[in-house]
């Protein structure tokens, strides 16, 4: 080794390092593609299972209760105060131009199109996507999922589809409630802070809304529900490394579903504006 010229050694190690870097990057890319593929398969089956027997309706109702009733307090509280804050922020700007009555318009549009579905999606993702991931992850590491398969039950039908269906039903309802409570919060803030009458606020808030606005909000809430439930299920059913892995999956479920919700929101907004312009 002492006779080996130094430059040659450097060259060799540099080649080895670059090949290993390429190797690592290739492996990471393959792994990412595989994860996307597995997630797509899980998502496809979660919906396809709903069109054939057996369907697990009691499990779906239990999940609706867990996702819906369980998330209601945080959705109510956050919805109310977001509506109030919207009025406080926009109202002072409108006051400068003497157009305080426009506050109802802007708050209503923002809540129905954007803030209602997105904030509700993010809140439910934080609460339920993590819950789903930790529950399914714990079942996986304690062999309960294998036990289910060993007894001839399809875990995708029994565990994934009821959660996805429950989220698809409940999240749009929660979004509706969130928007309504947000408008209530906005009305309270506008009455006490801007001296705007409650009637004017409500009249303007309702009059400004068109069918396309409602559809935009509704379609977003459905897509967000699908994202948060399938990501939670995917992370839970792909836990590696025992209880530590369950913790990681729980965190990942919240991070991934939140980011996906925000990314999806951008594209859905663009699509909705395009369709509203065309129709």
């Amino acid at each position, binding site marked *: 080794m002492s006779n080996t010229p130094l430059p040659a050694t450097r060259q060799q190690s540099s080649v080895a390092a670059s090949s290993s870097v390429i190797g690592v990057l290739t492996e990471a890319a393959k792994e990412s593609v595989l994860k996307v593929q597995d997630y797509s398969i899980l998502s496809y089956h979660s919906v396809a299972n709903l069109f054939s027997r*057996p369907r697990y309706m009691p499990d779906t109702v239990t999940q609706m209760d867990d996702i819906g009733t369980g998330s209601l307090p945080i959705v109510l509280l956050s919805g109310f105060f977001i509506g109030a804050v919207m009025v406080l922020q926009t109202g002072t700007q409108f006051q400068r131009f003497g157009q305080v009555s426009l506050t109802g318009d802007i708050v209503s549009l923002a809540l129905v199109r954007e803030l209602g579905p997105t904030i509700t999606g993010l809140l439910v993702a934080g609460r339920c996507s993590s819950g789903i991931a930790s529950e399914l992850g714990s*079942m996986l590491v*304690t*062999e*309960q999922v*294998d*036990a*289910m*398969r*060993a*007894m*001839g*039950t*399809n875990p995708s039908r029994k565990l994934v589809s009821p959660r996805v269906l429950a989220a698809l039903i409940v999240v749009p309802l929660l979004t509706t409630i969130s928007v309504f409570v947000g408008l209530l919060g906005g009305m309270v803030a506008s009455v006490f802070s801007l001296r705007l009458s409650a009637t004017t606020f409500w009249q303007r808030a309702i009059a400004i809304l068109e069918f396309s606005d409602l559809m935009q909000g509704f379609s977003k809430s459905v897509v967000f529900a699908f994202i948060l439930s399938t990501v939670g299920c995917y992370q839970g059913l792909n836990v590696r490394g025992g209880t530590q892995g369950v913790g990681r999956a729980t965190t990942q479920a919240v991070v991934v579903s939140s980011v996906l919700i925000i990314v999806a929101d951008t594209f859905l907004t663009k699509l909705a504006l395009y369709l509203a312009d065309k129709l």
Partner: protein
Amino acid sequence: MSAPPTSTAALGSSSEPALDFSDVWLGFEEGPILRGLSFSVQPRETLILLGETGTGKTLTLKLAAGLLCPDSGTVRALGQDITGKPERELLEFRRQVGFVFQEGALFDSLTVRENVAFRLLEEGNVTEEEVEPVVREALSFVELENTVDMYPSELSGGMRRRVDIARAIITRPELLVYDSPTGGLDPVTSTTIIELIIKQRDVFKTSSLLVTHRLQDAFMMATHYFDRKSNRMQPLPPGMQGEVPMGFLILRDGKIIFDGNLDELVHTQDEYIREYIS
């Protein structure tokens, strides 16, 4: 109605094996784990799979139940080739197989009643009222009738294994696989579990594959039979075997290094096996 010991000559069957592995290979990223396994479990036979930790015993059980697919080779179970079958068909097949898991694997959000009834309710067309007596019967077999309304977290380790056995046998499966049913239990509880397995073996005569690394459990199963009169297991008289044929397999580094009966096992000349069983 005791199960009397019979002579060795009376044992055996010419019908197709309940389980048949033929040159089965299975590996993961770190390399092959199972290297060309070939063995079979005859109808009514109980085969005990021994080996050190990490030799692939649990993987063998999962292959037998169709929970894993081999890289190469063939697994035939209950008259059908389950190698590479689609999951939908495997779900049907697994309804004829009972699997007792190492840690019980009970559904912790369900009561004991719901855990034991799970399989029957999943098969459909039955109500909870119709299932109740069957659940009671399965739980009385494992002497845990009084736990029906309890949750798994309220049970001891031994009780959880017994409930898992009740859950596995409730549909009278044609093939039973046990994954270290006494692992992590104290000697007294282990004996209780082995007594239950002997009872199951001698009463229902289900073809079984049992994994264990406790040699005393394996020897107890080979040297005892279940006496229905006393409702206890009893030692077999010297020179006699139980009604149900018993075999032993020893795995080492993913290969079978022994396949025979108790007599052949205790008289083997293989150094490793002699050390292993000593």
